[in-house]
């Protein structure tokens, strides 16, 4: 264990100001859609307060990815046409992009790579939920997919320093890259990600996705399905080379996660084979 790196990570995660900030409107909207007492008018008002974001949100509402045909020119209209949950997802996309779109040096990811992977994992996760007739969790796994590896943004600098030690441990101990991150640096990117989501005041299910997407068997039972879906989508996207970095495929596809989702071998191969279409689909979100 590198005590120096461990301490420096501790300093960052215990100091809220050092973690990446998210526009407040995003945190508010994410919690508002879960509150049955909140009307869609209130959500629309909350979003519309932020002019700069509203423009970008409307742009996305009219993208091929989200559009339902008719041009949307107001947030009110967007909520009516696309639904509250869909608009919540779009708010998060606009809010999170500046954080996730940067190069992530220690993981050898160029500008846009982490963002693209988030979009791919989000879309595949949503497809899995819809395929399993679980529309009720489709938006949650989408949001979770976007931000599942946000911790990498903070920890990357240390991964760069400790890379040799981490990869050596992976090889000698036969453990996954995130397990070795924890052994060498005291923390892995999932734990750091959880801290970031605490700062953002995100709901528990999203925190579980970020914290446990690499080890779904340890997720709280109530969130295990959502976590398992993002776990599988992440693994398949990496196999397809999407967002693959210096940690390579030193990861895991967990049997129990697959069992939890009820996906068959053919389903998994189908998800992998549909990757080119999925990449076309996310093109206008990049």
């Amino acid at each position, binding site marked *: 264990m590198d005590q120096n790196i461990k301490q420096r990570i501790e300093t960052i995660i215990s100091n809220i100001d050092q973690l990446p900030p998210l526009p407040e409107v995003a945190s508010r909207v994410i919690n508002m859609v879960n509150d049955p007492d909140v009307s869609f008018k209130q959500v629309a008002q909350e979003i519309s307060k932020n002019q700069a974001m509203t423009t970008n949100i409307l742009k996305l509402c009219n993208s091929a990815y989200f559009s339902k045909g008719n041009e949307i020119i107001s947030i009110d209209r967007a909520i009516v046409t696309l639904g509250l949950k869909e608009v919540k997802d779009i708010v998060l996309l606009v809010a999170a992009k500046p954080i996730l779109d940067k190069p992530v040096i220690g993981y050898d990811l160029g500008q846009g790579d982490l963002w693209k992977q988030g979009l791919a994992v989000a879309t595949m996760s949503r497809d899995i939920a819809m395929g399993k007739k679980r529309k009720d969790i489709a938006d949650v796994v989408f949001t979770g997919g976007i931000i599942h590896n946000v911790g990498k943004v903070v920890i990357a600098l240390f991964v760069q320093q400790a890379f040799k030690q981490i990869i050596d441990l992976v090889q000698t101990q036969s453990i996954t890259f995130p397990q070795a991150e924890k052994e060498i640096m005291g923390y892995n990117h999932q734990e750091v990600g959880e801290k970031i989501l605490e700062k953002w005041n995100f709901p528990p299910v999203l925190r579980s996705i970020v914290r446990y997407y690499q080890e779904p068997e340890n997720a709280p039972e109530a969130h295990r399905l959502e976590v398992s879906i993002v776990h599988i989508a992440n693994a398949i996207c990496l*196999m397809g*080379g999407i967002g693959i970095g210096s940690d*390579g495929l*030193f*990861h*895991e*596809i967990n049997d129990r996660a697959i069992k939890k989702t009820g996906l068959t071998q053919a389903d998994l*191969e189908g998800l992998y084979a549909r990757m*080119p279409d999925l990449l076309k689909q996310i093109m206008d979100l990049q």
Partner: protein
Amino acid sequence: MLEIITVGVAQIKNSSSPSVLRTILGSCVGICLYDRVKKIGGMAHILLPVNQKVGSSPEKYANTAIPMLVKMLLHEGAKIEYLSAKITGGASMFKIGSNISLGQIGIRNIEQTKQELQKLGIAILVEDVGGNQGRVIDFYLEDGRMKVKAGGQEKIYYKV
């Protein structure tokens, strides 16, 4: 400045000296073909070994993409006897349940790729395949060299 052409998942592209063809591979396999006389070449980035349905996205599968790439290069004036291949990619997930067939996809991609090239009589000069690392590939059509970046290290294969 060298022109860098990105080859996406399940795409085939060809060009001539001094362009560079670039791709990123996980379990997919990248097939780099080069005509050393004409200094033209191409790359296929295949996702799966065998196309089960005729006519559906041939670029995706080793058994249909490789003949397609060869045809493309011959059309550009390459000669089959001057073509040589470098293949790379086909990594596997580090830990994967033994009964998950998707875990074998990298290995199956490599095997099928070799079979197809053998059928066409194209020699494989370089194999940088398997393992658990992602790879960033640059294929230089200037001289046919291939650079493989994996796990923070770079290797260059010059043989053509």
